[in-house]
């Protein structure tokens, strides 16, 4: 019974737990419930990834209605891989948030925080698992609505305007996806992803399908904050509570990247999107601009959270760049970077959250002299920062290595150069913070407040840092899963690899 329904559990568990959390009312039991549920979801998703890697795709008919009439949940390597990252990060962030939110969210809203977090997790798992294009839109909106709430929970009033801006942009993005899906349905009469894929092949020169593709790509690009549609992201990440930022930065936009991969490779098929529509040039251009423009802006910020938020937009550039290279290695580097970026950004934002917990500020001036006074937090920040830069023996190096390899396979020398140039800019923006932490003396006013962060924050932070290094040295698990996923995605759309 449980075995059969395993595929649906990562959605069902948090969805049921969310209203329970409000009923429970007291913070401590809610925290235990949320962490347990999220932990169960991550164990289940590991199990699912294992099943998918050994026995192949899992298909689950919701309510017993067979696809293409009913909603199908379909788990292959690509979504199981991202699901593992999302649920694991969610669990660690919940562990981290117990102390972190005390300083950043009013006590009366703690229950709401956990409820919104669980709803967001349910939505994200739903997006990943579903095999139905319209269902994907619904889960996208569940997670987005929860996200707007999460962002608006902070004590700083600027989070409200940030959340509102995010809501407007996010809704436009989601509505664009809805229009796109509607146009596809108009032409093909189906919403099941695999069914859509086979029928779009028959119609791929029709104007309806072309327009649908345009709407969906623009809509998803807003959701994943591709330059120049990223303007909602930096204020939202800067003013949201640290625990929320750590969760969103490492999961929400990354799931949107997965949605883009799913639409391009499974539904539309790579040869249609890239060969007939020439989408790769547009994506590549914006990705490269994102890497340089946003890394540069990141280096100009006074607030560390803001720096990391712009850095996130730049990192999304790397993922989209990987997709736009149109070969298995490029797509693999994109998927790998979704997983790896979750590890590094999660750790970085947790470290900033720990600093905020002690000093009540995330400005770069607050980081002065922390190297001596919060050694464990700053060591975690340094290691995760090195990973963002892409230093060997960290996960950042692995995904950039495959990205450069993919670029060279297509003999795009300038892209390989752009990736390296982007890494140099990362040295600048991470270096500024490290310089303040290790080579400057703290402000007199702050000295009394500074001590090492509590264990409940250090443990999840260090788990992520150790994962950063472990998966940077023993790459077999991540690269094999990503490779397998990328190969499968290229076959899924019934097209072979597109050669230039």
């Amino acid at each position, binding site marked *: 019974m449980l075995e059969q329904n395993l595929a649906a559990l990562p959605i069902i568990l948090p969805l049921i737990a969310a209203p329970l959390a409000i009923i429970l009312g007291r913070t401590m039991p809610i925290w235990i419930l949320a962490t347990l549920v999220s932990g169960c979801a991550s164990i289940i998703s590991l199990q699912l990834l294992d099943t998918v890697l050994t026995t192949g795709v899992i298909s689950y008919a919701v309510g017993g209605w067979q696809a293409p009439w009913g909603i199908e949940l379909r788990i292959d390597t690509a979504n199981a891989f991202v699901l593992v990252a999302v649920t694991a990060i969610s669990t660690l962030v919940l562990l981290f948030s117990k102390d972190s939110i005390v300083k950043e969210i009013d006590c009366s809203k703690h229950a709401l925080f956990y409820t919104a977090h669980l709803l967001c997790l349910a939505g994200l798992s739903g997006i990943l698992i579903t095999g139905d294009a*319209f269902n994907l*839109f*619904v889960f996208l*909106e569940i997670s987005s*609505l929860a996200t*707007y*709430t999460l962002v*608006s929970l902070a004590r700083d*009033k*600027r989070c*409200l*305007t940030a*959340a*509102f801006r995010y*809501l*407007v942009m996010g*809704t*436009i993005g*989601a*509505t664009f996806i*809805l*229009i796109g899906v*509607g146009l596809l*349905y*108009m032409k093909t009469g189906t*919403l099941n992803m695999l069914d859509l894929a086979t029928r779009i092949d028959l119609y791929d020169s029709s104007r309806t399908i072309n327009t649908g593709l345009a709407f969906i790509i623009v809509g998803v690009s807003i959701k994943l904050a591709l330059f120049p549609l990223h303007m909602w992201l930096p204020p939202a990440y800067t003013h949201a509570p640290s625990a929320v930022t750590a969760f969103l930065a490492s999961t929400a936009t990354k799931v949107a990247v997965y949605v883009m991969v799913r639409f391009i490779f499974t539904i539309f098929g790579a040869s249609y999107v890239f060969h007939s529509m020439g989408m790769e040039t547009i994506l590549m251009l914006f990705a490269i601009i994102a890497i340089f423009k946003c890394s540069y802006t990141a280096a100009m910020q006074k607030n560390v959270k803001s720096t990391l938020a712009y850095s996130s937009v730049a990192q999304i550039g790397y993922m989209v760049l990987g997709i736009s290279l149109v070969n298995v290695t490029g797509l693999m580097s994109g998927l790998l970077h979704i997983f790896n970026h979750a590890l590094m950004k999660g750790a970085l934002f947790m470290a900033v959250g720990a600093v905020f917990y002690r000093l009540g500020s995330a400005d770069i001036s607050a980081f002065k002299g922390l190297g001596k006074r919060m050694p464990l937090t700053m060591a975690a920040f340094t290691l995760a920062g090195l990973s963002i830069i892409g230093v060997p023996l960290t996960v950042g190096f692995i995904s950039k290595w495959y990205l450069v390899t993919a670029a060279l396979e297509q003999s795009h020398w300038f892209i390989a150069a752009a990736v390296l140039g982007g890494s140099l800019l990362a040295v600048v923006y991470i270096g500024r913070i490290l310089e303040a932490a290790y080579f400057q003396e703290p402000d007199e006013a702050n000295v009394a407040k500074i001590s090492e962060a509590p264990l409940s924050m250090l443990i999840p932070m260090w788990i992520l840092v150790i994962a950063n290094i472990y998966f940077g040295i023993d790459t077999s698990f991540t690269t094999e899963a990503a490779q397998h996923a990328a190969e499968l995605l290229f076959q899924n759309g019934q097209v072979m690899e597109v050669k230039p």
Partner: protein
Amino acid sequence: MNLILDYYNYWIVVFLMMTGFYIVISANNLVKKVVGLNIFQTSVFMMYISMGKVAGGTAPIVVDDNTLYSNPLPHVLILTAIVVGVATTAVGLSLIIRIKRAYGTVEENEFEHEDDAI
């Protein structure tokens, strides 16, 4: 001429969609932005609903003397989308209430000044 008459439902949809989109971009008042967002979403609902119409078909309820029905699926889909739209509006409006309390205004240019000052 046929292009206009045959596809009149789509012209309405496009007109509403652009009106809503323009309001979202140009309005300075947050409540107006939410109204624009609603018009924008409603246009999409109409697109779905009108595409489910089968020429000469009746409402999809089984009756003895009729065999041609309109497609009910887009209607069902759009029920879900309407719920999503209502939820979005609710979240948006409640954010506006909190913005009004925190800043004392719902005009975007006024609280942007204040944000810059912090």
